[in-house]
């Protein structure tokens, strides 16, 4: 087993809801709620879930774009939640992000050359000439033409812009890249190109990815392990293979079953989950999923189940009171 690169313990992020002229706190959005996980060197950890499940907030909290409400994040022997400005700057060299909408995350008034040079300049790396060479090398690596240096983001298509975002993320030779819906806005033919590029870069540079997406098929493809989130909590975590072959949590089961498969002979096999996701500002008591769960009992309405290892498995974790009884026949 490779070494643990990053570890989140009891990590939560709550956003206050303020109202009135005094802006008093009247409630809290529980975006991420007591999440624990380890990230191993060289792996891809997929994080899936529907809108509002907290997957993007989790990604942003890990790099302290949001200040965590509780918990610790250990990276490289340090607790990032306690890190000061200098430590943070150093940490951000090692942990980079790629966002969903490359147009919103690239400054439209900077040329691509400037965009790619900026992280190098900020961290005082090399002379201007060396930085120029590095930029050329980066463009080449992500499959963009050299004349891109002089051009601006609007001159590129969505797929090319995402390549610029990737080039910027790898500019500082990071250890971890957090990809937040990195291929979701792209057409399928382009999505496949960008996924291939991400996998190549991972092998070449020994990168570790946290791959956040709502697209189950993409997450299965790229991830070694997958965490499923629901209403701010991880409800199931296992190797990609195990999770998709034998999902143990009723939510994961429903989610996988709802995924339309590009095969007309498999029509009508969907198990349909009733209802909507509850509001994270007013999460239900007990298990967060019990309002939609077909197997709920009284216990589910009172106690929130902890994420624990599923029978005899050290790698498959599930947070459900009835995981064992529900999955007896598998």
């Amino acid at each position, binding site marked *: 087993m490779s070494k643990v690169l990053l570890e989140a313990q009891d990590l939560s992020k709550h956003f206050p809801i303020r109202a009135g002229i005094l802006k008093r706190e009247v409630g809290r959005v529980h975006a991420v709620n007591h999440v624990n996980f380890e990230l191993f060197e060289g792996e891809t950890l997929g994080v899936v879930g529907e809108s509002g499940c907290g997957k993007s907030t989790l990604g942003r909290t890990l790099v302290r774009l949001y200040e965590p409400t509780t918990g610790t994040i250990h990276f490289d022997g340090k607790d990032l939640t306690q890190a000061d400005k200098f430590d943070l700057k150093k940490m951000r060299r090692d942990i980079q992000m790629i966002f969903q909408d490359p147009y919103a995350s690239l400054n439209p008034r900077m040329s691509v050359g400037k965009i790619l040079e900026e992280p190098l300049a900020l961290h005082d790396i090399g002379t201007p000439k060396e930085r120029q060479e590095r930029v050329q090398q980066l463009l080449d690596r992500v499959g963009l033409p050299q004349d891109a240096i002089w051009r601006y983001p609007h001159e590129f*298509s969505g797929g090319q812009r995402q390549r610029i975002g990737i080039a910027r993320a790898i500019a500082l030779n990071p250890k971890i890249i957090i990809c937040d819906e990195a291929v979701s806005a792209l057409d399928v*033919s382009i999505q*496949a190109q960008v996924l*291939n590029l991400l996998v190549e870069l991972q092998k070449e540079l020994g990168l570790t990815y946290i791959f956040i997406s709502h697209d189950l*098929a993409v997450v*299965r*493809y790229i991830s070694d392990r997958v965490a499923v989130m629901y209403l701010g909590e991880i409800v199931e975590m296992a190797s990609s293979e195990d999770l998709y072959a034998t999902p143990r949590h009723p939510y994961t089961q429903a989610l996988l079953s709802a995924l*339309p498969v590009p095969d007309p002979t*498999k029509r009508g096999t969907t198990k349909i*989950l009733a209802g909507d996701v509850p509001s994270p500002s007013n999460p239900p008591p007990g298990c967060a999923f019990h309002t939609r769960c077909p197997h709920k009992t009284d216990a589910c309405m009172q106690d929130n189940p902890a994420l624990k290892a599923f029978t005899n498995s050290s790698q498959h974790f599930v947070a459900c009171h009835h995981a064992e009884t529900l999955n007896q026949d598998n």
Partner: protein
Amino acid sequence: MAQEVLLNVENLVVSFDTDRGKITPVNGVSFQVKRGKTLAIVGESGCGKSVTSLSIMGLIPGANGKIEGGAIEYDGQDLLKFSGTQMRKLRGDKIAMIFQEPMTALNPVYTIGNQIMEVYKLHREMSKKEAFDHALAMLEKVKIPDPKQRMREYPHQLSGGMRQRVMIAMSLACNPDVLIADEPTTALDVTIQAQVLDLMKDLQTDLGTSVIFITHDLGVVAEVADDVVVMYAGDIIERGTVFDIFKDPKHPYTQGLLDSLPKSSDTKNEELQAIKGMVPSLFDLPQGCRFKDRCALAEEACGESSPELEKFSDTHEAACFVTSRNNAA
């Protein structure tokens, strides 16, 4: 088995005048919608699928858009010859549409009830009371919990899935013959998407509506479609039954699209079969076949003239020189 053709689109050409010159996002498109069936139009951004549907609704903006040619036959009449008033009567009554983002399609300052009642008042000349009862019944039909309460609420008070149900209720209010659904589930989460697709299917069986389902999601196509049309850069490049398209795709683009999707057996040790390059700009289309620059099979002939749709079976057609020749051999 002959099926009744409800809507016949014949050689439709739509152009737009822009600052950078004229473009033709729909370039001679023909297809038929059968009664009670679902036709899916698939393609990536900019392939012309949405412009095609707006033409059927008579919603191409007059300022710079123009329908250059072709015919849209419905019920023995050519919709392209209809006046504005005639089209207004038809829209929402015989042909209705739902859009990707219900929040922008619903009016934020009117209640849900008001907006559904408007359809009845306009097309059925009902009184307020009658319209209210019908609207309420429609909300029940689309399985919105607590419909009486919802009638008095505004769009922002509903979740995305509920809003899309309201859109469906509104579009089916007059029991239209044709429902055009433009990416109706794209903005929804998978579990909600499954609910909405299921609902649409139930209502379709119930009411016998024909559906034109526009989407880029091949998984959804496999789930809902009877017939499929694949578009690329303004052309139809392949069409057939849903089984023709998924089991035996003929056009290299259709094959490429299907191969691009990560399958359950794929792991990241195997590279995905991506289509190289990107969709050509409508301002600068290549000569001949519009797919040739991205095509692995392209040869010289592909650059000289554009291929026409050729029959592979009674239901299956594709526009590719190379596949046609290989098939003949």
